[in-house]
Structure formats: structure tokens, C-alpha cells
């Protein structure tokens, strides 16, 4: 796996409410360049929302988000999102485009590469996830695991500085989870800065550099995986771990 030009990412005291529903209540998260932070917690704890706030799919009410030490809130959000790749639970591939075109699309339209060059670039990204031979079929003909690997290739093609994974394996059949997790671990080893929202405790424990446990819109506990999993300090984390492990 090639090296990446990764950036650091930091969320500072991020707040977000939908009406009276306070989804994020002062979140701090620091992800140094080239490290992997996993975010765990029960459903509805605000994990996925946090990802969407950090790439400004949703604008925060208060707080700051720093990419490479610079606040991103005053920049163009579309350009910000080109620097942050995102992988979704439901893959969200474009069903009306071929696999290759899914990967090449943003290269052509946003990076303005000529068609041939975008296709070549897309093929090499697909090669990295082992799916070059599927470039000309529609996503719907692929298995869930293959689709998610295409989605990862699509995000990587934009040469992001940070990658977000939003429960990337939750929609997969159990036997397909492994391949996607292995690919994610490869990226982490290659030095990509990653924020991984996950229910895969094994991945969180073995691959990530820090683990952040969220509940009710706040960070309850965070630290290196050894500490978080072996010596949970709060009752909430102890309860959560005993439920999921």
C-alpha cells in the first residue's frame, strides 16, 4: 500500500442541535496525522453525526474543526470535502454508473482530469482494492463487500488527507466483513489519517491508535485501545463493553 499525504484532524468543543434535540454537546477529538481514531458507542450517541459535522455535510452550531491545524469553517465546504474521503454504511455507490465510472466520476468532474486519464487513475485505484476486473459492470452486480471496496476506492481516488468510515461493515454479511476490515487496516498501516465509527470492537482494539467512546452526544472516555478496553474507568463504558463483547 502506497504512502498517503495525510493531514491531522481536530474537533474542538463541537455542538450541534436539531431543534431541541442536542445531538453533540461539546465534542473534542484529536487525530494526529497518520493515525487511526475509532469512535465507538451505542446507537444514537452522535458518532455518525460527528463525522458529518467534521466534513461539514452538517454545519456545527458551535466549536471549531481544524484540518492540518487550520480552521475549516471559513473555507469552501465543497473543497474541504475533496480533502476528506468518506465511506458509508450503505456504500452509496451510484447505481446508474459502472464501477469504473463511479471511481472516475469525481476525478473527471472535480479534478478535471481528461476522460482517459481519469479512467486509468480509477483502474489503478480499483486494482488496489482487488476489483480492477469489475470496472465495467454495474455496482448492483457486486457483493456487498465488493461494493464497499469500490466505495473505498472511489474515496481514495480523490487523494484525501483524511478518511472517514461510517459503520462501513455494518451492512455486510458476516463473511464479507473481514475483507473490508483488512483493507481498512492496510490503509491505517499505510499512514492514512482515519476516523472510524464502528461496532467492530476487534478492529477498534487492534488497529486504531486511539479509541473514543461516545454516549448521549458527549465523549465519555477516550485513550489508547489498551486502556479503554482493559481498564474502562466509567460505568457507562463498562456497561457498553459488557453488552457488546
Amino acid at each position, binding site marked *: 500500500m502506497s504512502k498517503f499525504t495525510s493531514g491531522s484532524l481536530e474537533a474542538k468543543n463541537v455542538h450541534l442541535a436539531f431543534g431541541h434535540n442536542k445531538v453533540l454537546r461539546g465534542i473534542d477529538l484529536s487525530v494526529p496525522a497518520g493515525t487511526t481514531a475509532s469512535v465507538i458507542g451505542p446507537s444514537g450517541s452522535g458518532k455518525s453525526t460527528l463525522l458529518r459535522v467534521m*466534513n461539514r*455535510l452538517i454545519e456545527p452550531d458551535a466549536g471549531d474543526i481544524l484540518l492540518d491545524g487550520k480552521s475549516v469553517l471559513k473555507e469552501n465546504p*465543497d*473543497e474541504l*470535502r*475533496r480533502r*476528506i*474521503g*468518506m465511506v*458509508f454504511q*450503505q456504500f*452509496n*455507490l*451510484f*447505481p*446508474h454508473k459502472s464501477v469504473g465510472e463511479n471511481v472516475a*466520476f*469525481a476525478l473527471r*468532474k*472535480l479534478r478535471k482530469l481528461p476522460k482517459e486519464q481519469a479512467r486509468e487513475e480509477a483502474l489503478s485505484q480499483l486494482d488496489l482494492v482487488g476489483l480492477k476486473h469489475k470496472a465495467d459492470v*454495474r455496482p*448492483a*452486480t457486486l*457483493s456487498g463487500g465488493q461494493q464497499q471496496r469500490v*466505495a473505498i476506492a*472511489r*474515496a481514495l481516488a*480523490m487523494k484525501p488527507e483524511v478518511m472517514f468510515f461510517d459503520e462501513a461493515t455494518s451492512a455486510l454479511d458476516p463473511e464479507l466483513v473481514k475483507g473490508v476490515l483488512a483493507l481498512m487496516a492496510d490503509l491505517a498501516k499505510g499512514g492514512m489519517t482515519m476516523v472510524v465509527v464502528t461496532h467492530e470492537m476487534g478492529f477498534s482494539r487492534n488497529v486504531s491508535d486511539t479509541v473514543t467512546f461516545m454516549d448521549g452526544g458527549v465523549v465519555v472516555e477516550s485513550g489508547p485501545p489498551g486502556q479503554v478496553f482493559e481498564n474502562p474507568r466509567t460505568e457507562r463504558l463498562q456497561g457498553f463493553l459488557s453488552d457488546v463483547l
Partner: protein
Amino acid sequence: MDYLNRLAETFLDWKAIAEVLPAMFSVGLPNTLVLAIVSGIIGCVAGMVLALMGISRNPVARWAARVYTDVFRGLPAVLTILVIGLGFGPIFRELTGVTSPYPMGIAALSLMSSAYIGEIFRSGIQSVDKGQLEAARALGFGYGPSLRMVVVPQGIRRVLPALVNQFIALIKESSLVFTLGLLASERELFQIGQDAAARSGNLSGYVAAAVFYLAMTVPLTHLVNWIDARLRTGRPQKMEPDEAAAVVGKGAHS
């Protein structure tokens, strides 16, 4: 037998039908097609604008699209055509010197079809999974380009059958332009049939017109069914092994 003969004379006066055919082919058919196709195209363009207004984040745009759609879907076609044609026709004549009622007929048909087509497009666009918009925006596309390049193309594909149905309706409704009074060379299929019926004293002219309409609408109806079936089964369905087994199981039980 007397009744049968009378019915045959009324509807199937072959001589009257033969007399009207040349005018149907050379005048009526082209005019009907021009009316339906031009107002169909304008209706699609205006309908897309209405659909985008209808899903816009601007409440004024949404409200305007809503009112427009409610009005033009809620009026009888003949009333719209008459009011637009007779109301705006004279002004249009003064401004442009064009005496033909055609532009006004096309305008009225376009106004109505855009209201229907707008709703068709809107429902199609809104049926596209929200994750598609999110994925496009996460790649770095703005809201507008994401809609235009990712969401709208998928939405349109799904509503193709409904669009063709709308075009069928336009072919039929174009007959109502006769209410504006047409010159001989402007007559569409229905008017020619009506004139022939008046001349021959029986309804065979209408029958000839009916055959022309059916020759257009029936194949289109089947086209709708074909597109519909293809959209539903064209994409190879990924079946779980137990799903496949369930189908076999059902077959075995029935």
C-alpha cells in the same frame, strides 16, 4: 340486420374514410404530432424547473410551484385551452402578427403538461435514496451539481413510464385545440375527422381519426409496459441463497 346496416353506414362508410385519409396523413397527423411533441418538450423543460422548485430549500419557490401545479392540474383541459387561446390570442396576434391559434394551443398544452410532468419529476427525484446526495457531496460536489449529475438522472430513469403516459395524454388532449378555430391547413386529426363527418353526414370521419390516434397511443402504451418491465427486472437481482430457496419452496407448495 337493419340495425347492423345502419351502424355500418354510420361508422364504416369506406368511401368517406378513403376520402379523408389523404388529409389525415398530409395535414392532420403532422399537426397533431407537432402539437404533442412541441408541448411535450416545453412541458418537460418547464416541468423540470417546477420539480426543482418543488424540492428547493427556498419556501417561496416551493410555494409558487405548488400553486401553479394545483391550478393547472385542477382545471379541465378544454377550459385552459379556451381561456389561454381566446384570452391571450388577440394580444399575441397584435404583438407578433401571427394569426395562427397554434402558438396559443401549444402554450396551453405546455402549461398543463408541465404541471403533471413537474409532479412526475418531483416524485422521481424524491424517490432517490438520500445517501446518493450525501455520497456526491462527500466527494466534494456542491448541492446543485450533486442534484444535477447524480440524483436527477436516477430520478428521471425511474419515471420514464409515467413520462410516456403523459405524452400519450398530450396526443389525445391536442385534439382540444380545435376549440380555438383552425384554418384548413392547421387542422389536426380530430378536426379533420369532424369536418369529414359533417360533410358525409355520418361518423366515419371520426372513426378514421380514432384509428390514427390508436395507431400512435397503443404502441406507446406497450412501450410504457416494456420500459416498466425492463426497469424492474433489467437490473440483475442479487438473491440470497435462502431467498432463492424460498421461491422454490413457494412454487412447490402452490
